[in-house]
């Protein structure tokens, strides 16, 4: 059985070392936070200018001055700090985040990432902090379904969507497999509900 998004988020969370500084991208990656053990000491960064962000705010906790990169109201944990945008991106671009987890349209076997723009005519491009996270974090994990709705692999020999960054992804977490990517190509680490041989046949990369 392929993993649910929640199950996959738990697998990603398992692989984040205790005490890491982590940025979770908008969308699916946000769910990883729910699966980090309370005593993990993992510190979440949000690129709009905060470290040690807490869970989403509810009810009276909601404060319009306190939102995450997805513009969702969040909370502050003890030991938090605030900083301006240049300092926040300096933190990302300077290589200080241990891990970031991003969504993707496509990842190449050598770690190229395409996650910001479909490239379709009429689609309005919007990049946000994706390119900065892609080049900045010590490890970039991608979290995505391995196949699109038409059954085509999103892990590809070469990205056809507009690139976010070159050779920046180190590992891809998908519903059917965890795959390392990089200069040496793709290596399957584990599979879920599918054998490695079946996976290789479907991927053909």
């Amino acid at each position, binding site marked *: 059985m392929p993993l649910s998004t929640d199950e996959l988020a738990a697998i990603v969370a398992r692989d984040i070392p205790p005490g890491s500084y982590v940025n979770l991208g908008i969308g699916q990656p946000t769910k990883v936070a729910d699966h980090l053990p309370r005593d993990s000491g993992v510190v979440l960064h949000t690129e709009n200018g905060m470290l040690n962000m807490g869970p989403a705010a509810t009810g009276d906790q909601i404060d319009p001055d306190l939102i995450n990169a997805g513009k969702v109201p969040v909370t502050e944990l003890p030991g938090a700090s605030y900083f301006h945008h240049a300092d926040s991106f300096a933190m990302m671009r300077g290589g200080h985040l241990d891990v970031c987890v991003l969504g993707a349209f496509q990842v190449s076997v050598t770690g190229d990432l395409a996650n910001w723009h479909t490239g379709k005519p*009429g689609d309005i*491009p*919007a*990049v946000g902090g994706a390119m*900065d996270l892609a080049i900045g974090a010590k490890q970039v994990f991608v979290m995505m379904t391995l196949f699109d709705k038409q059954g085509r692999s999103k892990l590809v020999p070469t990205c056809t969507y507009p690139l976010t960054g070159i050779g920046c992804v180190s590992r891809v977490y998908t519903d059917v497999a965890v795959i390392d990517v990089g200069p040496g190509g793709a290596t399957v680490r584990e599979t879920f509900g599918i054998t490695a041989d079946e996976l290789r046949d479907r991927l053909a990369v």
Partner: protein
Amino acid sequence: MSRARILDSADEAVSGIEDGSTVLVGGFGLAGMPFDLIDALIRQGAKELTVVSNNAGNGEVGLAALLQAGRVRKVICSFPRQTDSHVFDGLYRAGKIELEVVPQGNLAERIRAAGAGIGAFYCPTGAGTSLAEGKETRTIDGRVHVLEYPIKGDVALISAHRADTMGNLVYRKTARNFGPIMATAAATTIAQVREVVPVGGLDPEAVVTPGIYVHRIVQEAC
């Protein structure tokens, strides 16, 4: 004292902004968005503006209202497309507004560079992507870097939490975002604040924007 002037209304605060100006607008989504100043700018009437901001407006308020009023020629931002960016989307699809998409970290660093006297800088962000097309590159320590130039404003419109009468500012939580860097990068920086306190009312260790960067201050309408 010093150069900051406390004004009675947002209308006074935005007076003199000229057609064709480059306006840096603080805020990330709605947090830190200087709504009073933008509304006053709409009333003031300056047109053919270039707006530099992280987003391109939400709903029909703030930046979206300025766009809808037809005052903006060009938007320089990192993330125009949002669930509620229909005003921008419509103008863009109708070919009525120009868009320059800049990676968010380059946007922030280019604004900082303008305030810090940096003529240009090299950074790996965007190397090899369509957003770096046509830009000069250089390989430093084996890594391709893109040359980026400062983004200066004629005016910065920002929102802060508290000011003293010398123009020192503090912000609140993630509403800090672009305010501190935009304040440094404009010829005239205009801040709306929730509260103005006397000199000595802010902790010198916790001032985020020193008054040297702030020219006009107005207290928010309640």
